[in-house]
């Protein structure tokens, strides 16, 4: 495969002023004059400026036909990278070589003017994005039909609803015909029906063997669309490679840097209610091969919910399990060893160290955040860790890529989301 974009050693620095950090980096004449007066020969006290490297030595290649993701958290430099690739800002060092006709879409509706009509805006915006007048004329009817705003074509866009505005803007963009498309979060616009149309357009674009570079905050979208990508962290390349590796790495970074905002992906004995039967020491989730998960699960896969601890008293009625609550703290599932089999199958447990694990079924929970909590009891007799207590538990998030349907951006409606079979007779 021939690389169509070669990024080699790109760095970008900004000067940031500590004098007044809230102020944007443009000065008034007064500032510069007074600084000149204070130190006419350049000596003396300097303004406290510091060089900040938004990007440092970035290199990667994009091959023809790739759906290439650029991911990273806010401030990782991905927007700067995108602006360099779009020729909006110039790099401080390094170079990018692009082979092929490029169109870049950093927002929808660039250059739309409130006073102009829909028709006029189609022409101006189309030209802005790189279409020739002839090309716009040729595609005009398609653009209008795609946007579903025929009736308001000669109305100034200031009278449009925001939905109409976005639909028209996206329609123009969707009719670009480049070999390489650079996209920034312009995907999730409009209502569900329009999203589906936009999505189909994107996918057909990609299926034509054209190259797409895509920046998004939606991990689900990146996972669904991109085959490859680069993960940026603090302006440096963390990893270049397959999407799944990237996302795993990315969630690790998030988990490491801000444990409060990201799922608490395992639990280790801290303060717990003392009891005479069972002292849990560790709770975590693994995949079916026993690999510990970091709190991000796929909807379609099965996992193990694992409970390690010390059994203090032998009792044949001893029972463990887990409960699942959603963000609103509603109980969605209750799973326990004893309720899932006949009494004859209950295990005979010995005192001492023990690990229980129960399956987490695939294709049940909807995309979203959940809390998995420990349950323990003497079956039908007494609670050890009951449903109401603040029992030991872990936070998990499940991705929204539930099926192959293109409604992939958000979770489904409803508490659970099994995949159903449909028949037509």
């Amino acid at each position, binding site marked *: 495969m021939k690389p169509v974009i070669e990024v080699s050693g790109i760095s970008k620095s900004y000067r940031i002023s500590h004098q007044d950090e809230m102020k944007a980096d*443009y000065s008034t004449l007064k500032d510069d004059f007074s600084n000149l007066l204070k130190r006419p020969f350049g000596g003396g006290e300097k303004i406290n400026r510091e060089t900040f490297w938004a990007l440092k030595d970035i290199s990667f290649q994009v091959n023809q036909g790739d759906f290439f993701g650029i991911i990273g958290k806010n401030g990782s430099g991905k927007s700067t990278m995108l602006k360099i690739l779009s*020729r*909006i800002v110039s790099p401080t060092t390094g*170079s990018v070589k692009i*082979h092929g006709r490029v169109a870049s879409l950093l927002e929808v509706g660039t*250059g739309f003017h409130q006073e102009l009509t829909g028709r006029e805006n189609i022409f101006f915006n189309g030209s802005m994005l790189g279409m020739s007048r002839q090309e716009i004329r040729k595609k005009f009817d398609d653009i209008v039909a795609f946007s579903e705003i025929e009736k308001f074509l000669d109305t100034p866009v200031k009278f449009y609803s925001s939905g109409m505005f976005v639909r028209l803007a996206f329609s123009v963009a969707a009719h670009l015909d*480049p070999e390489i498309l650079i996209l920034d979060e312009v995907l999730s616009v409009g209502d569900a029906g329009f999203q589906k149309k936009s999505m189909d357009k994107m996918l057909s674009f990609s299926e034509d063997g054209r190259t797409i570079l895509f920046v998004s905050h939606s991990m689900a979208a990146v996972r669904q669309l991109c085959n490859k990508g680069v993960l940026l962290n603090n302006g440096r390349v963390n990893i270049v490679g397959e999407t799944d590796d990237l996302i795993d790495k990315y969630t690790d970074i998030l988990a490491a840097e801000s444990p409060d905002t990201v799922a608490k992906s395992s639990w280790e004995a801290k303060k717990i209610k003392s009891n005479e039967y069972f002292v849990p020491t560790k709770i975590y989730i693994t995949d079916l091969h026993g690999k510990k998960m970091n709190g991000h699960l796929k909807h379609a896969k099965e996992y193990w919910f694992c409970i390690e601890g010390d059994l203090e008293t032998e009792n044949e009625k001893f029972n463990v399990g887990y409960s699942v609550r959603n963000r609103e703290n509603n109980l969605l599932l209750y799973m326990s060893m004893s309720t899932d089999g006949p009494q004859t199958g209950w295990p005979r447990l010995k005192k001492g160290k023990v690990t229980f694990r129960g399956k987490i079924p695939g294709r049940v929970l909807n995309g979203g955040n959940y809390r998995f909590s420990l349950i323990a009891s003497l079956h039908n007799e007494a609670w050890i860790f009951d449903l109401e207590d603040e029992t030991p538990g872990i936070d998990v998030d499940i991705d929204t890529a539930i099926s192959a349907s293109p409604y992939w951006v958000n979770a489904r409606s409803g508490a659970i989301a099994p995949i159903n079979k449909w028949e037509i007779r």
Partner: protein
Amino acid sequence: MRSLTNDITIDSETGSKISLRELWLFRELFYFFAWRDIKVRYKQTVLGAGWAILQPLLAAGIFTLFFNHVAKIGSGAPNIPYPVFAYLGLTFWNSFSGAVGTVSNSVVGSAGLISKVYFPRLIPPLAATALSIVDFMFAIIVFFVLLIGFRIVPGLEGLLLIIPSLALIMFSAFGIGLFFAALNVKYRDIRSALPYLIQIWFFVTPVIYPLTLIPHRFQIWAYLNPATGAISSVKAGIFHQPVNWAGLGLSWLSTIVFIAMGLWYFKRTEKNFVDII
């Protein structure tokens, strides 16, 4: 799709040279820019392009009243009616001041576009210049109506000088505006300071008074101001007076210097526009 070639290289030098080929490639965008500005300017106005005529007309009326009747400043010759004299000067002056103003604000005014799409950054200033030419076209038509009304036969030399003088005005306004446009990105003070600068410039340019009001030995230096060259030579030509060709040449020379300076400063700072705009 518009594309210079199929291969692009982006590095720290990107955009620091003027590529005429690229400007040519983006000529349609230039056209759309100018077209949009004209459309937007006259949307939701009752008079529309009438403003292009009304502004110099009203100004000429006011100056006739206060300068001519009250302050007794004339057109420099008894056979030249002051209102026609002042109106001619004002049509050219308005194009000049209008172009300097819109070109100076063109880059900051397009900040939203510049930070989201690539195109040669010279396009907004160029389109702003084109806008002033359109206004001039409306205003000059009324000048001919005035000539008929005052029964004046214009000199052929003057008629032939209208287009070159407009060119002189536009080139110099473009060069000066370009410099301020780039400076405006860094120092927003320009936006506030510019109206005063233009006002002072107006009074040092023989728009509403004849050049002969300036002592003779200083007159040639007044031609360093391109607006003086354009306005004085058209006036002289139209009203059958000798045109100062040496002065006109000097005005063109200083215009070339203005353009060179404007382009140099603009291109030098262009690649940092988005970082500080």
